């Protein structure tokens, strides 16, 4: 098969791929991916889009859509993977693609997807060329991109809905502002002179009174930034903590009295020959996780506790009892190798050697004795990720956790960076209920959406997407909850395959 046939084969698979327009050689990652795509249908999940804006498309609805479930599910994730014969080398480098599933309340579900027009994206667009540097993408012949963190910020991890706009979040940069109707990018967020350009990471926590807490970090200066945005405040309040060595924290927790930021021993150790931000990090299996615990009323006050060596991407939630014990849960990994291995291998089209193998774990921090412990909870033969809760309980006592799951017997999916089910676990009783997707469908993060007027964390729906990479369909699925067991009651289908994404938020219609 010649190069053109190879490319046409790839383009035909999803209808998204574009042929390179120039005679310059295709890069190795691009060639390898498209060669493998011919024989590995699951790679379509990582092929990416080329279309800047799909416009709204009507989806086909099956089943009985719950009458009270009206609003928009916004999802973010790596969307554009390649440009003119060049391809990012790491999944996390894909330019952010924002998707809206709009449930209009009149029985229709519409979908729109639009690439987030960051400084980096626009610079690449002008040249029709990837800048070829990123979080985990390296080139010996880099094209200079925008300076500082904006040279890497692809705004591709998650979304924070605000009063009349969305913030598209990345880990190491400022949020990008998005119009929630048109999904048009309206600019880089600068809340004040002091905070202009400061990193605002991708998993802010919102208290019931609307106060937003977050952290950001800037590794070259070993600087941790704590953010607080209270409703009505004109400017955010920040606190700075020198944190050396800096880790790569992805998520954190709040309770009524504390902020908790676990720092796995993946240390930023800048070398002269550093190739990418990711590769400037060294995993130290001999060192513990340092957990920063900050006083929420005075975040200058801090102490550290230690947990055993492990890697954690996401936490479900934390709460604090009257004795000052903080409890939180999350899927624990032995190390961060997925990030160094799997998420690069899939960009080349290789079948990774590693599967997702996590263990749901409960952590307890005793704030009075300043100690920490952990214990495995939940099934030991199921790996999980993307833990979510009823967000109304952020920082408060909670009992139910929803997560994507994968049985050990289905570890093939795990190697491919996919899960095959969604599970609910009752943290008090240990009861687990799961819905298994067909093997050709890759589920994405599923959210708990409370029913209108409900007060209980069981009185709601699960709402989540799944990607049928064989029949080239994307589904929005709704589940009723009967105890732990999610029961699918309706789905809306978009007649094309979208790229596998990361996180989203549901905004109920008002």
């Amino acid at each position, binding site marked *: 098969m010649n190069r053109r046939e190879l490319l046409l084969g790839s383009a035909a698979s999803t209808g998204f791929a574009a042929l390179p327009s120039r005679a310059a050689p295709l890069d190795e990652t691009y060639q390898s991916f498209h060669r493998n795509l011919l024989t590995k249908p699951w790679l379509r999940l990582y092929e990416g889009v080329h279309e800047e804006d799909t416009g709204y498309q009507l989806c086909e609805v099956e089943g009985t859509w719950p009458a009270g479930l009206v609003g928009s599910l916004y999802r973010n994730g790596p969307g554009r993977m390649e440009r003119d014969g060049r391809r990012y080398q790491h999944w996390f480098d894909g330019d952010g693609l924002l998707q809206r599933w709009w449930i209009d309340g009149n029985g229709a579900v519409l979908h729109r997807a639009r690439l987030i027009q960051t400084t980096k994206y626009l610079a690449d667009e002008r040249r029709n060329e990837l800048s070829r540097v990123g979080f985990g993408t390296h080139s010996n012949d880099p094209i*200079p991109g*925008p*300076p*500082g*963190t904006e*040279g*890497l910020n692809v705004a591709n991890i998650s979304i924070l809905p605000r009063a009349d706009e969305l913030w598209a979040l990345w880990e190491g940069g400022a949020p990008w502002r998005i119009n929630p109707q048109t999904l048009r990018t309206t600019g880089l967020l600068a809340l004040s*002179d*002091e*905070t*202009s*350009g*400061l990193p605002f990471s991708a998993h802010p926590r919102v208290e019931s009174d609307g106060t937003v807490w977050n952290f950001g970090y*800037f*590794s*070259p*200066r070993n*600087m941790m*930034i704590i953010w607080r945005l209270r409703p009505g405040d004109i400017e955010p309040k*920040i606190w*700075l903590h020198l944190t050396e060595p800096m880790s790569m924290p992805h998520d954190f927790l709040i309770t009524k009295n504390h902020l908790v930021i676990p720092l796995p021993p993946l240390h930023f150790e*800048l070398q002269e020959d*550093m190739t990418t*931000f990711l590769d*400037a990090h060294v995993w130290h299996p001999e060192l513990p996780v340092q957990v920063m615990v900050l006083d929420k009323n005075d975040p200058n006050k801090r102490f550290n506790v230690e947990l055993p060596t492990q890697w954690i991407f996401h936490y479900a939630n934390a709460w604090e009892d009257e004795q000052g014990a903080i409890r939180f849960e999350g899927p624990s990994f032995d190390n961060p190798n997925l990030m160094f291995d799997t998420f690069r291998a899939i960009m080349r089209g290789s079948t990774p050697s590693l599967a997702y193998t996590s263990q749901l774990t409960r952590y307890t921090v005793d704030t009075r004795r300043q100690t920490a412990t952990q214990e495995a909870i939940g099934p030991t033969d199921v790996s999980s990720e993307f833990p979510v809760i009823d967000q109304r309980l952020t920082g408060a006592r909670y009992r139910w956790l929803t997560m994507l799951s994968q049985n050990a017997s289905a570890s093939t999916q795990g190697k491919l960076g996919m899960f095959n089910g969604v599970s609910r676990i009752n943290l008090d009783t240990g009861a687990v209920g799961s819905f298994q997707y067909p093997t050709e469908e890759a589920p994405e993060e599923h959210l708990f959406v409370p029913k209108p007027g409900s007060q209980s964390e069981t009185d709601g729906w699960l709402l989540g997407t799944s990607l049928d990479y064989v029949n080239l369909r994307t589904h929005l699925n709704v589940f009723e909850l009967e105890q732990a067991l999610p029961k699918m009651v309706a789905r809306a289908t978009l007649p094309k395959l979208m790229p596998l994404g990361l996180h989203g938020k549901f905004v109920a219609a008002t």
Partner: protein
Amino acid sequence: MKFLVTIAISLTCSATLAADLTIKITNVEETTGTIYIAIWKDETNWPAGEPWRGYTTAVQAPETNYTLDIEEGIYAVSVFQDLNGNAKLDRNAIGLPREPYGISNDAPARFGPPKWQKMTFRVGAEGYTAELKLR
């Protein structure tokens, strides 16, 4: 007499070693404020110490040029556009620039200040044009 000899030597040297350094600042988006130019000659001073020479010039968009006589040698240049007239490069809470700035050779500053070796150039007898793109 000794004084006059010293002046004579000095004039002779400057006459033989001086060259034009043209600083060409591009990507100037706003005709606002003042451009501050710092010439660096000693690596040990970069970036926290004092530059060897400092100049200011009016802003012309999209390109501002400034030429000076300078001895032949190795130099680096940094510039910034002071948009609000406070005579300093404004920075955010962790010290990252908030006003347009540029570095000779467009030296990368992705993980900290640009490396000295990446930003230096040689001014020879024929002079040199250093192009700095504002970021």
